[in-house]
């Protein structure tokens, strides 16, 4: 059954494949309008199954709508439009089409009604995102893309094994809530968590994302982790393990971001931190918490894209990415500074920004459930967000000591993209009702109470005080901090080297031994059968007769014994 509804994800992917043939203004118009057209299509998808097909003895549902699916598909389409606008002056002709394939498959996951479709789009996302990373063109990004792909293929294999097990056990392909009662469901959960940037493989994210181009990272920040958040909301709401996984990610992100010197890697660690809030919310599993996780994914995509746009502008205009080489850029990049600061305020959940109306729902759910430890940790983490992303990023990039750099503002398309996203950060913080109306559960939540605003201001401003008081401890140095990627970049690489050397040595010893044996055998053959050797000589008739006599005698004896 296929109703007359176009699949928004497939339309975006098909459009992406046509993009390389377009040039000039036509291409620019297509890059911005195609995702907006897709956004319109997302809103045409009805509730319930829209496409159903027979595939390998199963009825799959490649297109299915409900509030949760529509919320994520909406933000993915919006993000593709904003990212496309930002990337208009990108010279790579691969990046934007690859990003649209990536975004289209993320929309495909969000609108999939069954696990087989989820898996297919999941893998297509890995391909699209690797191409985005690859299109940067440098050696570093090529190597990072290979590591990135390796981890995502691993996650894909785990997910596939889980889906296959689930289908064999239940005979059902529908993507619905699961519990951790079988190895198959564990595998599916792990497959989702790999993409979410959860431990222990979380290092793929800060390893790969900062190696993309100035516009590529903006796309990369949006889809992979948030698709995983969507999949976890649908598949594993209320799984308690996720509360602790989420809380670990929150603090891991903060601590590593505090030590980081690369401006875009700070923001990459901060993605893990923010996704941690969402995953903790999914683990709490109440309607308030799930609404919070979904709303936070929505607002996060916008402000994180805005932050990475401002960082991308700095990278494009200065060619530098290390905080220790930046500073004082507010002199000549006031617009970029203002937009980056708005993004920083939104990620910190400052009142009147989008983060304030979304993240607080997760904390509220913890308080409603009387989970003191979880609530205290979430509150401490909210303070930490302001510390590592809210102040640290804008301070070291745009302010601090004057680096003497006087770059101009980026091209108009980039400025407009930043302005639109900065506007959205504030608009969603002020007029939050439209966002709340999109959330999966109908709940009454009022973010702007005096008590909430005041407690949040206390928390954030005193975190700010801590930052400036302890600034000497936060001075940037030309260092990195080892992460779990050390295991596969160093430990496993060294181990593979060592095993190879060992095998080589064992191999050469074996072949030496074989050669020795061979030469001994050869000498023996030559000694016995060679020219004039004992067995090759012509023997006299009498000795032959004697030997025949002896043999016959022996035969006779044996016969009678």
């Amino acid at each position, binding site marked *: 059954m296929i109703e007359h509804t176009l699949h928004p994800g497939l339309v975006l992917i098909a459009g992406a494949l046509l993009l390389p043939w377009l040039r000039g203004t036509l291409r620019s118009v297509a890059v911005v309008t195609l995702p907006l057209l897709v956004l319109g299509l997302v809103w045409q998808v009805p509730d319930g199954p829209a496409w159903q097909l027979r595939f390998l003895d199963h009825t799959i549902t490649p297109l299915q709508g409900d509030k949760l699916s529509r919320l994520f598909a909406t933000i993915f389409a919006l993000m593709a439009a904003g990212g496309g606008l930002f990337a208009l002056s990108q010279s790579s002709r691969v990046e934007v089409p690859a990003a649209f394939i990536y975004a289209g498959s993320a929309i495909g996951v969000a609108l999939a009604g069954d696990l087989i479709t989820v898996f297919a789009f999941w893998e297509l996302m890995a391909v699209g995102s690797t191409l985005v990373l690859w299109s940067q063109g440098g050696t570093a990004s090529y*190597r990072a893309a*290979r*590591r990135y792909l390796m981890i995502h293929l691993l996650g894909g294999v785990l997910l596939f094994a889980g889906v296959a097990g689930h289908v064999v056990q239940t005979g059902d392909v529908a993507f619905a809530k699961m519990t951790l009662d079988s190895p198959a469901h564990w595998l599916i959960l792990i497959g989702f968590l790999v993409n979410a940037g959860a431990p222990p493989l979380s290092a793929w994210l800060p390893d790969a994302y900062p190696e993309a181009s100035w516009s590529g990272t903006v796309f990369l920040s949006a889809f992979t982790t948030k698709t995983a958040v969507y999949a976890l909301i649908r598949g594993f709401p209320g799984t308690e393990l996720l509360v602790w996984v989420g809380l670990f990610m929150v*603090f891991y992100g*903060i*601590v*590593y971001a*505090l*030590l980081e*010197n*690369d401006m875009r890697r700070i923001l990459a660690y901060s993605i893990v931190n923010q996704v941690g809030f969402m995953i903790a919310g999914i683990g709490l599993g109440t309607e308030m918490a799930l609404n919070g996780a979904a709303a936070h994914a929505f607002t996060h995509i916008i402000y994180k894209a805005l932050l990475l746009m401002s960082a991308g502008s700095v990278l494009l205009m200065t060619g530098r990415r*290390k905080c220790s080489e930046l500073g004082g850029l*507010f*002199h*000549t990049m006031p617009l970029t500074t203002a937009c980056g600061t708005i993004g920083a305020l939104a990620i910190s959940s400052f009142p009147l920004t989008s983060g304030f109306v979304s993240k607080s729902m997760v904390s509220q759910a913890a*308080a*409603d459930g*009387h989970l*003191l430890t979880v*609530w*205290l940790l979430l*509150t*401490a983490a909210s*303070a*930490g967000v302001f*510390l590592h992303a809210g102040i640290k990023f804008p301070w070291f990039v745009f*302010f601090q000591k*004057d680096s003497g750099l*006087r770059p101009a503002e980026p091209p108009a398309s980039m400025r407009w993209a930043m302005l639109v996203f900065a506007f959205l950060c504030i608009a969603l913080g002020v007029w939050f009702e439209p966002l709340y109306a999109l959330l999966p559960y109908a709940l009454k939540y009022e973010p702007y*109470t*005096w*008590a909430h605003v*005041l*407690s*949040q*201001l*206390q*928390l*954030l*401003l*005193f*975190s*700010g*005080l*801590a*930052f400036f008081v*302890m600034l000497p*401890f*936060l001075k940037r*140095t*030309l*260092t*990195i*901090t*080892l*992460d779990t990627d050390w295991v596969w*970049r*160093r430990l496993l*690489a060294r181990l593979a*080297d060592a095993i190879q050397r060992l095998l080589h040595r064992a191999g050469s010893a074996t072949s030496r031994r074989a050669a020795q044996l061979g030469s001994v055998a050869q000498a023996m053959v030559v000694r016995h059968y060679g020219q004039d050797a004992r067995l090759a000589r012509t023997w006299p008739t009498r000795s032959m007769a004697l030997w025949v006599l002896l043999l016959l005698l022996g035969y006779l004896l044996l016969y009678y014994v």
Partner: protein
Amino acid sequence: MDKQAHWLDQPRNVKRLWRAFLVVLALTVLAQVVVQLHPHFAVDSIFGFFAWFGLLACAAMIVVAKALALLLKRPDNYYDDGARDD
């Protein structure tokens, strides 16, 4: 390029900003006298909870980060030298 220094470049103004910041900090705590907060637990009913908790939490995170750095910090060309990382 810049004909005259930006107002933020003058130490006098930075000092003014600091003072304003400290006044705002004090105001957010004092406002608690007027605004009734709705504590969910015992600990957050202590006066100025969000202020001191935020400050201490941030200090703790910075200390933990510095401690971790002692173990895990490497020069940022750490992965370049071997050139055999993938």
